[in-house]
């Protein structure tokens, strides 16, 4: 799992929500609002980076969080994406 290279499905578009200043993932008929951590993860879902790479990036970006928390959040968010069919299969 940690060497997998997640990639957003081609139907997904990332855009800024100008009303809230947050980013959202859009796909047919739906949208998913992203918090700061989720946005960082989504940005790395290009197929080039492994889950380990993403965790390391987040650890650098968010000093306050423990590695354990970061791993858990990353796994949880990637599961959410997969569940909704938002990762390339």
């Amino acid at each position, binding site marked *: 799992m940690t060497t997998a290279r997640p990639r957003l*499905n*081609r*139907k997904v*578009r990332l*855009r800024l*929500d*100008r*009303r809230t200043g947050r980013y*959202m993932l*859009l*796909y*047919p*008929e739906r*949208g998913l609002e992203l918090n700061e951590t989720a946005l960082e993860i989504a940005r790395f879902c290009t197929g080039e980076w492994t889950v380990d790479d993403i965790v390391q990036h987040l650890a650098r970006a968010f000093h306050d969080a423990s590695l354990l928390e970061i791993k858990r959040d990353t796994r949880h968010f990637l599961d959410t994406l*997969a*569940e*909704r*069919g938002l*990762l390339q*299969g």
Partner: protein
Amino acid sequence: MNGEYRPYTFIAELTYQCPLRCPYCSNPLDYTHQRDEIDTDTWLRVFQEAEALGVVQLNLTGGEPLLRNDLERLIEGASKLELYTNLITSGIPLTFERLARFRALGLNSVQVSIQSTKPTESDRIAGAPSFHRKLDVMQWVRSLDIPLTMNVVLHRDNIGETAALIALAENVSADRLELANAQYLGWALRNRAALLPTREQLGRARAIAADARERLRGRMEVVFVTPDYYSAFPKSCMDGWGRRFIVVNPEGLALPCHLAQTLPGLHFDNVRQRSVEDIWHHSSGFNQFRGEGWLPDPCRTCDRRTKDFGGCRCQAFHVTGNAGATDPTCSLSPAHGRIESARSQASHVAGAPVLFEYRTGRGFARA
């Protein structure tokens, strides 16, 4: 107005004209009485105003949106606004080249409707030869790598094909399958006796769809929309009146749903005269059923009022005669007996053919 009322999805009904004549069409019964369709520049301005108000999803629909020869410009304009643009279509009339242009201009997804897995049956329900072309179009969509939704409106004559419909969607590699039971309003209400399935039919189809949803999870999204005639409680129609959706019809009327203009005594405004923002916040029609002040009994004190907002206003009016009544599909509605009798009629006529009254009018003849 607070964030509770923010439009996320804009439904642009570009025309009421359509080469098909489906007996459950969501357009109003008197769709041929419309005035002129609004022009390209008005649509482009309206998209811009809607995006500024918070809209992120745009559905280009109709009628048949392909009949607008400015569809290219509308897609291009929507794409510049970063709207996630969905084309909702029968696929007719279309060429591969035009579809490729749409993609190049930024179209995000295509939804093609199918009436049945059997060619002659699909053509009978659509009221026009169309099945084979629809299959072609779905293949074009996939070959251009555009995300594809296959949509099927379910009713008594095709709900038994649920397994075959799922297989067809897999076969064309759809990203998403919408198995949506007809909403019994407009043409579908007129044809209710021919369309409403029995409880047994519905139960079987729902179980098949639930299995497929698990099996295909992560590969193809399978959406099954139950008819509210068989639910204990109503749907939160449009996620609540004037909360998440704006519909603009071909002549420019801005509405909370496809049929809101059929409710008597309500006033709706036209985007030719007022901005989308002004209409969203101040139009009396949009404000009529917002909040809780208007809620009837038994909704007023019901715990579900924050989930379903009293249900569908059009259903309330077209079944009970009062747009402000509790949606009669709710088992707590005093008018629920009318829904029960429609269900009981469905079980009596099950198996017996009932003729459709096809959607007709000069809109079709011109197309």
